């Protein structure tokens, strides 16, 4: 506890300091501080909802916010409405040839753990490495849900390269106390196939979700089950 000091009356509180900056510097700093906090507040408020005007301001201020890392565009504010829907995700791989064959059962999927979340490292870093891995998976899952398979593929490609035998990857959501049966039984947010060429090029392709449709599926509309090379 710092040592106590004598009380000072209101006059002294508002008395200018001896070494206060010149007025024009003080005014310039004052305007800059107001602009800084206006931008920070707008950026933080973007977690609740973004208007088109807000987006324009943020786009204009992005160099300032990004260069000084005052706001992370990719993450939601802690305890905001979006953050409250956060779930635990797992990344899994399998080496089956086809997901539609009867061989592809639950046991074929094995979990790919981030190599850094287990053991003593987790205790030392206070779970921060684990949180980063979960943020990455959440981001990939969110992109997959928003039909940005082209983006998820780039993010999963390094992992696919490291998993030499894997043919498919998927991200699943762990059921928890607050999820219901319907949510637990829903499709994984992401399932992707890994295509490996003989030249060693690895490509990841997100598989489309199976959707219900009001249109009757005619035989002529069904996707071909054979690759063009196999077609006689």
């Amino acid at each position, binding site marked *: 506890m710092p040592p106590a000091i004598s009380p000072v009356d209101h006059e002294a509180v508002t008395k200018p300091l001896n070494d206060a900056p010149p007025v024009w510097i003080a005014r310039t700093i004052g305007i800059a501080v107001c602009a800084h906090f206006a931008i920070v507040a707008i950026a933080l408020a973007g977690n609740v909802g973004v208007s088109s005007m807000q987006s324009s301001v943020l786009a204009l201020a992005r160099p300032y916010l*990004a260069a000084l*890392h005052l706001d992370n565009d990719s993450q939601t504010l802690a305890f905001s409405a979006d953050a409250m829907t956060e779930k635990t995700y797992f990344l899994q791989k399998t080496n089956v040839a086809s997901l539609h064959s009867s061989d592809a059962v639950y046991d074929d999927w094995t979990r790919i753990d981030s190599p850094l979340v287990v053991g003593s490292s987790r205790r030392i870093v206070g779970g921060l490495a684990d949180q980063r891995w979960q943020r990455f998976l959440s981001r990939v899952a969110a992109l997959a849900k928003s039909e940005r398979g082209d983006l998820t593929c780039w993010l999963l490609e390094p992992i696919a390269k490291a998993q030499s035998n894997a043919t498919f990857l998927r991200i699943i959501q762990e059921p928890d106390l607050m999820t219901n049966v319907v949510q637990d039984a829903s499709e994984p947010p992401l399932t992707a196939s890994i295509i490996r060429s003989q030249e060693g090029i690895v490509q990841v392709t997100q598989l489309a979700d199976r959707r219900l449709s009001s249109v009757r599926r005619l035989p002529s509309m069904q996707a071909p089950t054979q690759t063009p090379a196999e077609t006689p």
Partner: protein
Amino acid sequence: MSTLIRFLFHRDPLDASLFIIRIGLCLLAFWFFVSHWNDSPIWFGENGIASQQTLSNFFDTADMAGEAAWYLSPLYWTTSTTVIRAYLIAGMALAIAAALYPSRLLSVPLWLACVGLANRGFLIAGTEDALLCSGLAYLAIARPLDCQFRTVTQEHWCTVLSRRMFQVHVTVLLIITGWSMLSSPIWWDGTASISIAAPTGRRLLDVTSWVSSPWIHEPLTHAILLTTLAAPLMLWVPKTRSFAVIAVVIWCVTLAILSSQWLYLSTLAVCVQSFWRQTPTQ
């Protein structure tokens, strides 16, 4: 304008020194660098998950290359594990040195090192990175002489400005967190505290059994929400300021236990010390 200038540059003599904030933020920055030791090569290495090539392809496809170009970091120049770890060691050394000896020659490079690391982890950075970077920037504004463990009767205007930056940032953050909470029904129906604890796979402590009873999680949720809404006001009223600081620290500890976001909430708990007042003698 004169009111604003008085607010930014004129010290309240009862304001406590920034000593606790300097020590706290430096230790948290040290923790931040240590936490990257194991996983940074896995993310930022040559074949890393967030390697330069992966990010380049990602941003080009997302048409975000222009925006992403502003996340500046020297770590984009290297994929070497040795260089990345040398950067982390330098960051840790700066954090310890800045905690032991107040100087802008240490606090400014420490802030820039933190920004560099946070910007490199663009895809995996969290809210704690942004708050830590902001806090270190505000700390670097203060005159080093005023950040020591002693009563300063004549603070430099830079130190007063630094304290005001901390105070306004904490207030803005709490206000917007409160607004954001109100937009989610779980903060109204009392289930928010158990919802925070529920994803046990990403929590250090599984406290769901502690808060499973409605008699626990509902009052806890309402208390957290009320503190978030009341604190920004109470922090600025001299009579309630000390009480509000203690309430916010308890709020941070409670949410940290529930959410495992220890670094973010510890940083917030340290930054709120900018409101701490010295005890006047009679």
